[in-house]
């Protein structure tokens, strides 16, 4: 059972206080998108074994959605940050690189 710190209220919350929301930094495809773009937005998920950015809601706390950067394999948490952040912050990237120097950001989905 994970512990994630809500970046809004500062509570280090047990997983049972949180509701998961799947992969973070998806870019919405609206009525103008073609079938391929929409399919990618709706269904293509990275399912990483390793560094993963994901959405959580502090459902039984302050109610805010936030984002977490975490390693799905080692369970290390690189940090949590506000949901209104277009892509992971520099300190998150630095924290990931400290463990995996070869890791490269992939913001293609967030741009």
């Amino acid at each position, binding site marked *: *059972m*994970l*512990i*994630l710190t809500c970046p809004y209220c500062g509570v280090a919350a*047990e*997983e049972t206080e949180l*509701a998961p*929301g799947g992969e973070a930094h998806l870019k*919405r*495809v*609206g*009525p103008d*998108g073609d*079938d391929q773009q*929409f399919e990618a937005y*709706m269904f293509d998920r990275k399912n990483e074994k390793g560094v993963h950015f994901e*959405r959580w*809601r502090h*459902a039984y706390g302050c*109610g*805010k*959605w936030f984002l977490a950067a975490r*390693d799905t*394999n*080692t*369970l*290390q*948490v690189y940090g949590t940050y506000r*949901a*209104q952040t277009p892509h992971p912050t520099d300190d998150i990237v630095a924290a990931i690189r400290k*463990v995996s120097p070869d890791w490269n950001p992939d913001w293609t989905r967030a741009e």
Partner: protein
Amino acid sequence: MTYTAPFRLPQGGRLIDRAFQIPFRFDGRHLRGLEGDTLASAMLANGQMLMGRSFKYHRPRGPIASGAEEPNALFGLGQGGRFEPNQRATTTTLLPGMVLGSQNCWPSLDADIGAVNNWLSPMFPAGFYYKTFMHPRPFWKHVFEPIIRRSAGLGRAPTDPDPDRYEQAYAFADVVVVGGGIAGLQAAKQAADQGQRVIVLGQSPIWGGRTPVDHKGGAAVVNALVADLERRENVTMRRNTMATGLYDHGYLIAREALADHDPNQGIPRQRLWRIRTQQVVTATGALERPLAFACNDVPGVMLASAVRDFIVNYGVAPGKRIVVVTNNDDAYRTALIAHDSGLEVAAVIDARPTADSELAQAVRAANIPVLTDTGIAKVKGGRHVDGVVLCRQQGDGQQIGTLDCDVVAMSGGWSPVVHLWSHCGGKLLWDEAEAMFRPNPERPPLGADGQGNVTAVGAANGDLRAAGDLERRELPTMPVWVMPQNAPYKLRAKMWLDFQNDVKVSDVQLAAREGYASVEHTKRYTTLGMATDQGKVSNINGLAILSNALSQPIPATGTTTFRPPYTPVTLATIAADARGDAFQPLRKTPMHAWHEAHGASWEPVGHWRRPYCYPQAGEDRDKAVNREILAVRRSVGTLDASTLGKIIVKGPDAGKLLDMLYTNMMSTLPVGKCRYGLMCSENGFLMDDGVVARLSDDTWLCHTTTGGADRIHGHMEDWLQCEWWDWQVYTANLTEQYAQIAVAGPKARELLQRLGGDIDLSQEALPFMTWAEGQIGGIPARIYRISFSGELSYEIAVPAGRGLELWEKLHEAGRDLNITPYGTEAMHVMRAEKGFIMIGDETDGTIIPQDLGLGWAISKKKQDYIGKRAQSRSFMKQRSRWQLVGLESLDKRIIPDGALAVDEGTNANGQRKTQGRVTSSYYSPTLDRPIAMALVRHGPDRMGQELEFPMPSGEVLKGRIVDPVFYDKEGSRLNG
């Protein structure tokens, strides 16, 4: 006169109190043990070595171990609601009056018919199930499945409710030390010295682990450590507490036995600890491995450590003449202890070429023969060991001698208990010198900060000489996976690896020959390690055999995954207080007590209870529902609609947000008006519906379905916070702030006018789909002119605290109008008569509004809304999608909800093709005939056509496709 059981030694037994005899019953026989005994020691003291039958071959079995790893000595314990199957005799403390029953045998443990499987064992090789129960296919239902079901599972499930109380508790610590042996106690002292908050968990009732048994002076060292720790404020010691699983970020689950099998203490039986800790120290010790020699499962063949445990701890002799067989020095302790207790030790059989450690020299000095490069070719005896046949370990099993004995104490070396370490990602490395897997200190499980949060110490870390100064020097263990080394098939087919599930060396080798190279596949194919003991004594031996068969080193094979729990946890402990009324919270509306007092028959809706109907004397539910419907249609009725979700959406951009959330336009709704709205998921599917009212220029009130309030509020917040976070909108879920009452029927207006107030309820002032605010009957209220019944209808929202008052005033004022409270079922039938859809009936997560004829509620003007892009996909626009129609039964019988309409032809599985299904189906008292709604391929284009619905009984019901609005199609009633 003091009774002494036949196998109780005259002295010794550090855990028993000879002054207190404890009577118990085993398979109807009356036996006596002593205070401090386990079930296993008490049975052995009485000469009862036969304690069970193996699962597959029903072979007679005695205990092989003295602790949690025991695979054989399992009993059904207790009676009635307190009966529990598969209780380990080696870890269950004997209590007065205990009732034990043997398992997996019929008619009795001694004469078990199932033992015929033993003679048929050549017919049941590894993978027997997969090979046998394949063909012919029709045999499955009537032959194979009943046989498998009857023989599946070990032990019986209890049939009565468990009368005992269980509880859960939370704890927080800097360090949790798992293991009460010398390594754990020392680690706890070290952490406590540094000022950390320490919790020490010990699985048994006594501290010290193996040290007091294995080392002279061990008990004194342990006692001093325990006394020191117990004095400290920052240390909590918990005995009888088994840490069963370690999960993410230092979350540890442990089961504490408080009053196990002793209901008279008046305290909870067990407690589940949920512990959050910064660090875990696993001091979980090691488990001794059996040796694989022929007939190593005959009762009387035991682990060497268990033999000395029974002698030292309980003063019990497992037998009178003991043979020790080993590949290491540790087992020599058993020879010495048995000898010192006055038992005869026939010999120590050592597979190693030489044995001249201090322990071996001490054994020789006691005139016990030590036979090196020797092994056991075969154990003689059926239900009890009679002797052993000796051979060269390096040979093929040729007899070089025999020894008479009644106990064989075997030791194949030790395996660290690495379960907790491994549960959460800790990796192992293969220690060639000691022939064991141990924790890899470079690869511990990680905490949230990326630092290791588990440390293994003592034997659990592979340090088998953890008792420090108390230890004597030992020589290395020699890996012996098969005894003798070149044993022929005949012997290998009698060498047990997994005692409980009857998996032998030959089975694992067969699996390897048949291509099972992965240890995980071999486990499932042979069932090795899949019994209630989860292979604690068998796994390492099994994967060593597999590695040899695959000609690869053991680390290349690896271990199977270690999964919690380490030992079984009863479901009652996991549930604890969450049972009965406390299972989940019950939500009640302000009028709940009134409904109860008026005989409501309840329907659970989410966590709510809603009245399904209000049966009167002599009425069943159907009759009550029909009466309620006719009362509403003819005069007036009231429905408690308080459970409907009520969400306020407010702010300068509120209209913009609602235009995205709903398929239709909400921003253009004038203040004072209501609009029915549909909400879809981003994937296009209909997820909720309800009436939206515009309260003011910047405020809307969104009604949701009863079950949907929290989910829809979460959905709104998700989009608001994560996608359109720069829009200025607030949402608030006010569901419980208001009581809401639907007043429906032709007399609804007349009734409300009787209550008095300042709201003009006339058709002109308050037409359909408008709302007004004021007071009614002296209560501040908002009145919505909306209708789910198809009648003239007002929904009145008042502050929750005044809901009951309004409800009672309505019933008081409407007595002469035959005012009738109606429940959810009357509501459902009336909405179906009107052809209104119900979320969850007509929708199932694959239905778009267009399927339900709700295209009118989808804005064509809007650029975008959630679900719009998804609904433009080609398969969403296909005319052949199943679409909503009404159904008329051709013979006045109700076509059941969920019935499938068949089509011509069959699919690839030989089943009839389908072209539709019934989504709602009721008897309509208004029309006095059955009505139904259905989703049918090309439905709206097929009015008047007939469909066939075959029933499981074989008969076929028929229905005609009609318009889904059965009642008041022009809407004159609700507009009245």
